[in-house]
Each structure stands twice: as C-alpha cells, then as structure tokens.
C-alpha cells in the first residue's frame, strides 16, 4: 500500500484522458477526493473523456466510488465518459459502484427556525398533558388492581412485595440514617451559631424538632427514595419492556400491573413511612448530639425542651404525608418505566425523567399539604 494516489489529465482536442495511479483506498480517500474535485472544477469542454485505471495498485469501495463519481460528473448532457484499463480483479467492484446511489437524493428545505421552535413548544406541552393523563391512568389501574386483590386476596404477589420491601426499605436504612443524622446535626449547628448572637440558643431545640418532624424527615427520605428506588423501578421495568418481557407476560394472560407494578407500589408505600420515622429519629439524635457537644445543651435539657415544644400533631403531620409521597414516587417510576422505547438512550432519558418528576411532584404535594394543615390549624 505504498503509492500515493495520482490523477493526471491530458487533453487532446475533443478527447480528454485521465490517468489514475497509486492506491485508491480508504486511507487516501480525502486526498483522492480533492484530486477529483479539482479535475471536475476545471471541467474542460471535452466531449469524450477516458479514465485510465491501469496504473492503480490498490482499489477498494472508497476508490471505486470516487472513480464512479468522476464518471458521473461527465456523463449526461451529450458527453460521455469511458473507463479503460480496468484490472480484471477490480471489475466487479467498479460495476457495483456504478449501480449504487442511483436514487435521486431527497431535496426540499427543512421547516424554518420559528416553526421548529413553535413545534417544540407545542410538542412539549402535548407531552406534559400526556404524562399527566398517563399518571392518572396508572393510578386508576393500580387502584383497580388493589380492589381486585381485596376481592381475591390469594392473587396478591406477597413474595414479590416482601422482596421489594427488602430492597426499597431494609437496604435503604443505612444510607437514610446516615444522611438524616448529618442533616439534623448541620441544622442544629447552624441554628446554635446564629441564635447564640441574641441569646436564644435554646430555641434551636424547637427549630430542629418542628423542622425535622414536620418537613425535613419526610422530604429527605422521599428525595432519597426517588433517587435510589424510583430510578431502579424505572430502569427495571424499562429494560423488561425493551426485551419484550412485559409483552411475554401479557401473552401468558398476566396483567403486568398485577405482577410487576402493584407489589412494587405497595412495597414503597409501606417502606417510606418506616424510613421516614427512622430518618426523623436519626435527625433528632444528630441535632441533640450537636446541641450537647457544640452548644452545651445537655441531653436532659434537650429532651425536656423537646417535650415542651413539639406535640404529637407535628409528628403525625410528617408521617401522614409519607405514604402519599411514596405513592407518587412509585406511580411516576412505573409510568416512566413502561414508556421506555427500544433504545438505550430512551432508557436513560426515562430514568432521569422518573427521578426529576418524582422529586418535583413530592415537593408540590408537600406544598399542598402545608396549605391544608394551615387551613385546619394543625
């Protein structure tokens, strides 16, 4: 594969002759293309063109296509091009190149930029309403499946649910405890640092207690569960969808909602309140520890102050939100999982969407609950 590709032209009145030589291969395709473009650009008035390939040492598809391109530049409007000196072993390849790319390329401009932007806005709006409908539909299907289970309790996939509780609940305990403990400690530290300036250190206990029990415990746990388990639900269901496992279930007469989705959603609805309780306790513990070590509020004082400042209401408000948020996370994750199309990219896209949407909806729901509890003065 030594020879540099060459293309020499020699004009002889009406006749123009090109002599090609060297390696016309993929490696030199860029160089050959420039030679050919040059030759075509000059475009002498010759009516008959001969392309002599006798000097070619190596030829592959790339070279053959470029020879063909040179030919096509001349053929038509009463002129003709001819190949001479084609080596026997390259004849088939040249013929193959001659027959391809005959279909007229599609022409026509794409839509203008304004139209594209408008189109995108419309499409995302339609997407948004579609996903809302899908969410409501899934909620309905899960409810229907749940009612069927009440009618025939034996049909419930209990083992599957226990397995999911193990994954979503039990295995999440260490990370949930660690994160909530740290957040509780950080809030207490920040509170002490700032409250101390006006001698209100002891109110840190009120702040930590109310904040953790009403809002932070449940929110932190839900965000972690959405990132940890919601994404796993979506990825599992999505790859099952990609490999037609869900279709296989359907053809065997099973409803994927009963078999796959209901156990997952029941599991997450059971696991999240438990995790919320554990997380809240860990955060209070972290807060208490920092109050003692950093703020000098000893544990007895912390506990008695805590008992004064919080009531059972605060605890209930936090915990009652947990199953609803869990339901949202589970439903969003399952809807996104079933939306996955064939490609790996689609799987990634829907897994991301699952986490982002779930966290967004959890926070919106939290706001709705805040308004509700403010109204009923709890």
């Amino acid at each position, binding site marked *: 594969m030594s020879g540099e590709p060459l293309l020499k032209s020699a004009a002889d009145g009406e006749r123009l002759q090109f002599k090609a030589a060297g390696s016309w*291969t*993929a*490696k030199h*395709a*860029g160089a050959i*293309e420039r030679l050919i473009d040059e030759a075509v650009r000059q475009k002498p008035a010759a009516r008959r063109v001969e392309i002599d390939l006798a000097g070619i040492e190596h030829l*592959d*598809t*790339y070279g053959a*296509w*470029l020879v063909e*391109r040179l030919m096509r530049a001349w053929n038509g409007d009463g002129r003709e091009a001819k190949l001479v000196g084609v080596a026997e*072993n390259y004849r*088939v*390849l040249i013929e*193959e*190149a001659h*027959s*391809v*790319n005959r*279909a007229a390329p599609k022409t026509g401009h794409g839509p203008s930029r304004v139209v594209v932007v408008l189109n995108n806005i419309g499409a995302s709006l339609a997407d948004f309403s579609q996903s809302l409908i899908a969410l409501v539909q899934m909620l309905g299907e899960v409810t229907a499946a749940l009612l069927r289970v009440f009618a025939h309790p034996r049909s419930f996939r209990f083992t599957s649910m226990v397995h999911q509780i193990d994954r979503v609940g039990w295995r999440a305990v260490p990370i949930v405890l660690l994160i909530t403990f740290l957040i509780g400690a950080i809030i207490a530290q920040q509170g002490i640092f700032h409250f101390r300036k006006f001698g209100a250190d002891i109110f840190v206990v009120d702040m930590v207690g109310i904040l953790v029990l009403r809002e932070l415990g449940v929110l932190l746990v839900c965000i972690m569960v959405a990132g940890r388990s919601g994404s796993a639900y979506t990825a599992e269901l999505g790859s099952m969808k990609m490999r037609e496992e869900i279709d296989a279930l359907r053809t065997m007469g099973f409803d994927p909602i009963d078999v796959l989705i209901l156990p997952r959603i029941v599991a997450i609805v059971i696991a999240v309140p438990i995790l919320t309780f554990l997380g809240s306790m860990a955060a209070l513990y972290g807060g208490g520890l920092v109050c003692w070590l950093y703020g000098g509020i000893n544990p007895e004082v912390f506990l008695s102050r805590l008992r004064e400042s919080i009531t059972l209401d605060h605890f209930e408000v936090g915990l009652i939100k947990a199953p609803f948020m869990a339901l949202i996370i589970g439903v969003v994750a399952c809807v996104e999982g079933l939306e996955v*199309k*064939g*490609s*790996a*990219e*689609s799987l990634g896209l829907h897994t991301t969407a699952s986490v982002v949407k779930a966290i967004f909806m959890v926070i919106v729901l939290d706001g709705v609950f805040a308004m509700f509890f403010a109204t009923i003065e709890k």
Partner: protein
Amino acid sequence: MAEAQKEVVIRVSDLVVGFGKINVLDHVALDVYRGEILGFVGASGSGKSVLMRTVIGLLPKREGRIEVFGVDLGNVNEKERQAVERRWGVLFQHGALFSSLTALQNVQFPMREYLDLSDRMLQEVALAKLEMVGLTADVRGKFPSELSGGMTKRVALARALALDPEIVFLDEPTSGLDPISAGEFDHLIRTLQRTLGLTVFMVTHDLDSLHDVCDRIAVLADGKIIASGPMATMLASEHPWLKAYFRGERAARRRA
C-alpha cells in the same frame, strides 16, 4: 490453488480458553486462508462463539497463539492491535447496532472515527454500503428499534464492512431469518466476498449456508477441531457426530 500457495490470514495454534475450572477450548488449531469462506460449526455450547470472541480479542486466552495477518495478537501494543482491528469487521449475532444512532450513522461511525473524509463522501459511501447489502435509501434515517430482524442484520453487515475490511467475522448471520431472507443473505455474503475479495469466518448452524456458500468447513467438538475440509469431506466422514450433523434427519430432509 495448491495448498502451499494459499496465504494464511488467521492462524490459531494450541489455543486454550476456559472459564473457572473448565477448558472450553482445549489446544485448538485452525488456519483460515485468504479469500475463502470458512463455515465453523459445532454443537450449541461447544465454544464456537468463544473461539470467535477470543480471536477478535473479547475473551482472554490461557495458552496458545493467535496470528492475524501474520501478527501475533498476544504480543502487540495498543497501536499495532488497532491497526489489525481496522482490517477486520464483525457482525454480531443480534446485530449490536448502536441504538441511539440511525442506520446511516451506525455505518458512518467507524468511518468518521478512522478516516479523513468530507461530509459528502461520508454520506455517499455510507449510502453505497447500505445499498450494497441490499437496503434501500429509506432505512437511512431509521433507528435500530424500528428495523426488522433481517434489516438489522443487513445494517450490521454494512457497518462491519464500513472500513473495507479484509476479514469479516459473522456470528450466526442467518439465525432468526426466514428461509428466503436467509438464502438472500447467503447470496449477499457470496457476492460481497467476490466483489471485495473478503475472507469470511462464519459461525453457523444453517446447513443451507454450509452447502451453498462455504468453501471449507471446520467442526468443533469436545474443545477440539475434529475435522476441516470442503462439504464433500464432511459428507464422507464416518465420525458419529459429523454423520449425525450432516447426514441426520434434518439434512436428509433437505436433500429430499
């Protein structure tokens, strides 16, 4: 062509490959000559794909030597290895097309990475490749999930041929295709082999492919190559496994 004149492009000698305590390939030796179509057969699970994947470097070997184009692949640096890899193309059993790229982009992918081509050239050559494997220009914008099984294999073949390789490895190219498409695919492989002067290493179970397109057949059983030669040799053999495979019920029905 006399035996001595044939150029060996792949030489596998004394190859041992195993998982855990089991040696799947036990001192295997195999030569593949330039310009031939080698059909590689063996019982399911006998290690055909293991041999192919070891040769192309996806599995580690325990012992032995693999030479491709005279280069010992056990003893090369990254650059030399890449130079060899550019000269072969692989068609995986399920196509292994990149699911986030269109058919045309899949074919263009190796070209874009390895060659210095203008956009126009990239477009034209990739389309030409798609057309050479018998696809129309309509598939260019389609994603792998929108292609049928036969189309997927064709696009994958076009991608394997993108860099004008000298060897193509085909892993069960006709599995999962209907007999007509399988026949067309065999014909296509034969045509491309003639047009491009390819050497083809084909793992297959398709008796029709073995009869129609393979110049030579190698048989793997019990971790060893138990026979190699043209179809006539296989049919004449008295080895019980070969008899069952080539002259068994299914084979007999084929000839009926």
